[in-house]
């Protein structure tokens, strides 16, 4: 011990320097403990990160499920772009839609007794419904063919109302079809562009 004491007294400056270095080291250790822990992550840090990661994975799974659903819906919507009336692509709906329905009826061999009362119902800035009333009297075969052809035709014709009944309850040869057909018209430029590009 005496020798250590003597040696320390003899090398006072070195001992003071060493003490300063040790103090500096301890200060750095205290001040930058978090950064040092980052350099050497312990079990607790890793466990916290794993828990966070598990939470993120759950969020990701949820996000994947939602995005897949949205994508499917969106893709189906885009794929069925021809189902919607787009003025830029298909022309003015008010002047064209009746002719389109008449064309389908002609193809089906059905003579429409009455078609008209077309009215545009605006849902919002992008969506409008074009409603058309129709009435026909024919055989069940012709009416069925008309409805089937209308189903196959573009745009998509939605039946807001459809009534099929015999003209005379005692005679089923003549059937009356009356209904309101709805066509969705999309007027938004962005959507119209997407659907037009997809169709091309």
């Amino acid at each position, binding site marked *: 011990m005496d020798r250590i004491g003597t040696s320390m007294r003899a090398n006072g400056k070195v001992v003071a320097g060493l003490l300063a270095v040790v103090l500096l080291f301890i200060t750095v250790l205290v001040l930058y403990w978090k950064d040092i822990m980052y350099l050497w*992550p312990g079990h607790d840090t890793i466990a916290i990160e794993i828990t966070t990661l598990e939470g993120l994975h759950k969020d990701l799974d949820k996000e994947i499920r*939602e*995005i897949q659903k949205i994508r499917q819906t*969106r893709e189906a919507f885009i794929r069925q772009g021809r189902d919607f009336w787009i003025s830029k692509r298909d022309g003015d709906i008010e002047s064209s839609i009746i002719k389109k329905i008449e064309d389908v009826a002609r193809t089906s061999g059905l003579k429409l007794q009455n078609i008209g009362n077309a009215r545009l119902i605006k849902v919002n800035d992008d969506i409008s419904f074009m409603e058309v009333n129709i009435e026909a009297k024919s055989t069940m075969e012709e009416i069925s063919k008309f409805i089937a052809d209308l*189903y196959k035709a573009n745009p998509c014709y939605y039946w807001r109302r459809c009534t*099929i009944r015999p003209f005379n309850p005692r005679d089923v040869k003549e059937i009356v079809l009356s209904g309101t057909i709805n066509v969705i018209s999309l007027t938004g430029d962005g959507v119209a562009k997407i659907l037009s590009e997809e169709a091309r």
Partner: protein
Amino acid sequence: MIYWDRGMNVFGASITSSGDGVLSLLKVACSDPGIPDLAGRLVNVFNRLEIGENHKIVLAARFDGAICMELELPKLPHHEMRKALDFELPRHIPVPIDEVIWTFRTVSEGGAGKGAAQSKVRILSVSRKVWDTTISSVAASGIKADVMTHPVMALRNLPSDPEELLDNHDEMGKALSSLSGSDAGPGKFAGLDVISGLPDEQKTGLLVCLLVGEFILQENVSSENLNLSHLPDSMRPQRFRAIRYSAAALFMLVLVLAGTLIFRSWLDARDRYGKIIAEKQRTLAKIDEFKQERLRNKKTDELVKKIRDSNPGNPEVILCLQLLSQKLPSNMWITMFNSRDNEMDVTICTMKDKDAQADLSKLSSLPNFSSFSIRSTRRDGDGTLTIFVHIVYQDKLKRQKNG
């Protein structure tokens, strides 16, 4: 024990102590006068003594100008005594205290009565220059030593002229006789016959060795008390070198293994942590990518949702009619079909009313109909049973078209 006199003649004696207090002289050696320098003579004697690693090596020299004195001082602990002498010595030594190195040992302490608080201290001082010269000679020889002292420090009683005593053949001869015990009873040394035939000068030198050796072994004096000053580390013997080196090597190995373990642990922790962070970033990027996609397609998605919610009507009336015509029992027919959006009112007639309702209930199991209910029935005069059915169709907006 190696001693050299004023003429630089080196003498060496290997002494051992047995359990019963008897000392044995194992080997003696005197330097070859043909060797010119002290270092060479020291090596010569050292090699001839064949000193083992476990031997304590004591060097005793006749330092030129050495001053030895005894002082009566108050009884003090060793370290306190050193401080006291530090203060006292300048008054007794004719040279500045900084130019000498000195040591002391307590020779005797006062007993009971008068002088009980006093102790006699022997002090030896040597010029620093002489000490350094001697040390460099010993260092040049490569000999390692535990103690380096002056023989007078080992004398029990300090004569008036100690230097004269150490060179006096007759006085030393008397001392030899007392140690060998040839005159009265057994002496302290065995094996002294090896020096009996030697010349007086060699005998005297070897006797000094024996006196110092005997003093150290019998009195159990610590090297701290005899040593004139701390010897440089390079001059101190390295004992049990193999064991120490092995321990050092083992320590280094443990250190390296521990270091490797720590490094490996750090590397693993960093690697694992890095992977977790990378995975976190990847997951966050993926989530962000999805969010961006939703943001990019927000307008389209909102439009789709709006269309779905706006209920434009039922595009699949034909499929409903087809389903009804296929699934309706053959004994039934539809007289009226009326649909409003996805809800349908159907009037069905039958002549066989027995199982009509059971047959119709089969339609309710069709997956396309989310609801199938019979609202009312009516019996006509001709026996026809008319059934009013309400159906809800659920495949809205899922039109499957070819082309």
